[in-house]
């Protein structure tokens, strides 16, 4: 264990330095050098990166191909948007506290399920609890039945599609395709004020750093080891006496929580949420950055997501109609030649610099596709302390 321990120590120093650098960049350099508009854009990218951190955990470490994170992103975003709409309406005289779009397109009466979101406390709690709860329930139903691989991916994607269709159909209460927009204040702070826009950026930056810290914490913990083990050999984990379903549910719920917070902060920063932000296409969009950056690593998903968003914006400004080809080409290149993402390049480069002693202990992404290979000779491997995993 001592070799592992020293490695752990050095990586711990690296982590602290990494966080310090990120903090200086986000809290010092970015606000000093960027215009309010660019800072807002970066804030939006940070929100998308939060979703990516969760996907890195669930997909990269846990092997669950989550094609439907738009649902949790959307839940967080819509709950925040509902609160902002109600708070704005309360300040407009003569509206009776009813949001503008309901007066125009709906019945002019706030539906019962909107009412709790008048309270900022309930809203924040709901953003933290509801999506994670939904994910836990769903995960529990799905993973205990041992649904995995492509079936899980299809299921999660269908959920995203259904969620978007539901939102579109309920125009009177969800704003339909228009979504919810036109927010003026954020918990009492004027959203048009550049100072408040910077505050939102700082909140997003802080939230992202906290999430990366949580993700790292989970990755190096015993739980993280189990998660990777479940990804690579679910049956063996079960034979060792652990319940893989529970492990996956936790990772899935944490990913949902991260997506939800990202969505909730996306709303005041971008100023709109609509079904176009939560359906199948954006859900796949979240994955692209994760895959390009390197899904199994800690920083790959975050940096990949930010880089892809940034490239998309700047390319589309330079070549208004050609940017999409560049994104597609990059994705194909990565999938075909670097299945571990760009992080794999970094790992290869570092390995080539070192003496050719293989370091199996590192937690850096192996990149290899865990796949759903058939469990080989499990019977020979049942050496676990207890064989308590109930099979049904």
């Amino acid at each position: 264990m001592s070799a592992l321990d020293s490695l752990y120590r050095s990586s711990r120093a690296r982590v602290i330095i990494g966080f310090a650098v990120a903090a200086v960049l986000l809290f010092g350099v970015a606000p000093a050098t960027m215009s309010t508009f660019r800072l807002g854009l970066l804030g939006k990218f940070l929100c998308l990166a939060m979703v990516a951190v969760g996907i890195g955990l669930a997909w990269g470490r846990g092997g669950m191909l989550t094609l439907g994170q738009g649902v949790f992103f959307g839940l967080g975003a819509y709950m925040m948007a509902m609160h902002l709409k109600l708070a704005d309406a309360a300040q407009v005289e003569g509206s009776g506290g009813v949001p503008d779009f309901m007066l125009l397109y709906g019945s002019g009466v706030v539906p019962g399920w909107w009412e709790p979101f008048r309270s900022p406390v309930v809203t924040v709690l709901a953003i933290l609890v509801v999506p994670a709860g939904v994910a836990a329930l769903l995960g529990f139903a799905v993973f205990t039945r041992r649904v995995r691989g492509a079936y899980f991916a299809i299921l999660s994607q269908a959920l995203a599609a259904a969620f978007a269709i539901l939102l579109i159909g309920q125009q009177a209460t969800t704003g339909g395709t228009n979504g919810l927009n036109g927010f003026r204040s954020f918990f009492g702070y004027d959203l048009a004020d550049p100072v408040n826009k910077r505050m939102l950026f700082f909140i997003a930056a802080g939230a992202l750093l906290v999430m990366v810290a949580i993700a790292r914490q989970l990755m190096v913990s015993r739980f993280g080891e189990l998660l990777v083990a479940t990804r690579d050999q679910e049956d063996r984990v079960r034979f060792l006496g652990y319940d893989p379903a529970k492990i996956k549910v936790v990772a899935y719920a944490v990913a949902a929580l991260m997506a939800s917070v990202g969505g909730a902060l996306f709303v005041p920063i971008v100023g709109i949420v609509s079904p176009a932000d939560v359906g199948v296409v954006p859900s796949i969009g979240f994955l692209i950055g994760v895959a390009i950056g390197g899904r199994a690593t800690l920083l790959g998903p975050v940096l990949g997501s930010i880089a892809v968003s940034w490239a998309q914006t700047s390319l589309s400004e330079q070549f208004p109609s050609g940017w999409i080809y560049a994104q597609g080409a990059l994705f194909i290149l990565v999938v075909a030649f670097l299945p571990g993402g760009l992080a794999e390049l970094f790992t290869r480069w570092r390995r080539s610099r070192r003496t050719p002693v293989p370091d199996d202990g590192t937690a850096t992404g192996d990149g290899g596709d865990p796949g759903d290979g058939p469990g080989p000779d499990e019977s020979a491997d049942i050496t676990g302390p207890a064989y308590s995993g109930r099979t049904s």
Partner: protein
Amino acid sequence: MTPSRATNRLAPAAALVVLALTLTACGAKTESGEEAGASGAAESCVDTSGDTVKIGFLNSLSGTMAISEQTVHDSLELAAEEINADGGVLGKQLEIVSEDGQSEPTVFAEKAEKLITSDCTAAVFGGWTSASRKAMLPVFEAQDSLLFYPVQYEGLEASPNIFYTGATTNQQIVPALDYLKEQGTESIFLVGSDYVFPRTANKIINAYAEANGMEVLGEEYAPLGHTDFSTIVNKVKAADADAVFNTLNGDSNVAFFKEYKNAGLGPDDMPVVSVSIAEEEVGGIGVDNVEGQLTAWNYYQTIDSPENDTFVEAFKAKYGDDRVTSDPMEAAYTSLYLWKGMVEKGESFDVADVQEAADGVTFDAPEGSVTVNGDNHHIAKTALVGKIGSDGLIHTEWSSGEPIEPDPFLEGYDWAEGLS
């Protein structure tokens, strides 16, 4: 894995959050929503000191809406070219900054802010879907800039920072219903895509029908992009209404009209009045499938006037003989000339001066004379009902005769009370 390590590791992150919150707890609080918007507005950075002035074109050049919005982009470029060749606006040449809205509302909001704050454009022209307009509206209001929106829409909106050069409901849907009533239509069936325009339009149609003794025999919605219309067409057939009012958008029209024809229905026994099919779409649907059906717009390529002849000729000369001109393209073309008129009347590119000068600005547009209403920022337009001909063009069947004053909230109609 000891607990102390865990706290150590989380400490820097926690400290940062605290830092973030203390650093920033000094922004303006909102007292009353109305005032706050103005106080927080950014100073305009529009540069009018040189020989040029920047304007922004914001259309979807990629994504599902690109096929429609590219045509608007083309006609905006034509208008800018003509204005520049004619000496520009207040002697300044127009410098165009184009951005791609990517068919996504959030991107429209992002690019609008970029055009206003980074490129410092004096005005922005574009948008198509209601969702994109709703996404841009708060940006233009917060930055106090101007948007010219060229597409017919569902009304119920009047922002001081937007000029609406397409029709509102009382210039397209209500006249179309008047026409149907004149023709003796007693029952109608409503078919639409599931989004804000068809739903609002159908709300208005229901109110109109109730007040005018018309019967609505059914109301069916299909998701945007839906292409299986056998069920809906069967319901339409079974209902046997006098006419169908169609607010489907995009690809769905192709499938709907094919199915409609397959079911043995046609313009003679049950005509379809469409409000989202223009010359550009007729080619896509196939003339065979829609020949003889009706549309309601404010402009057709076949309008016989010197202004339209010049417009169509110039457009074909620039983009090719096979191209057609349509209502949104004409409204976009007109919007640039109207902005020019406002700027020249107010002798300033300043937003407040343009808003001040807007009332009563007229332009002899290809569709006929149009006049800006300074109160609601819409324009008075002549309503037309046309029949799709075998040549793929639309020929005027009925006209309101004179421009109809815009009434986005339908305040002048007793039956519309309670709609807005």
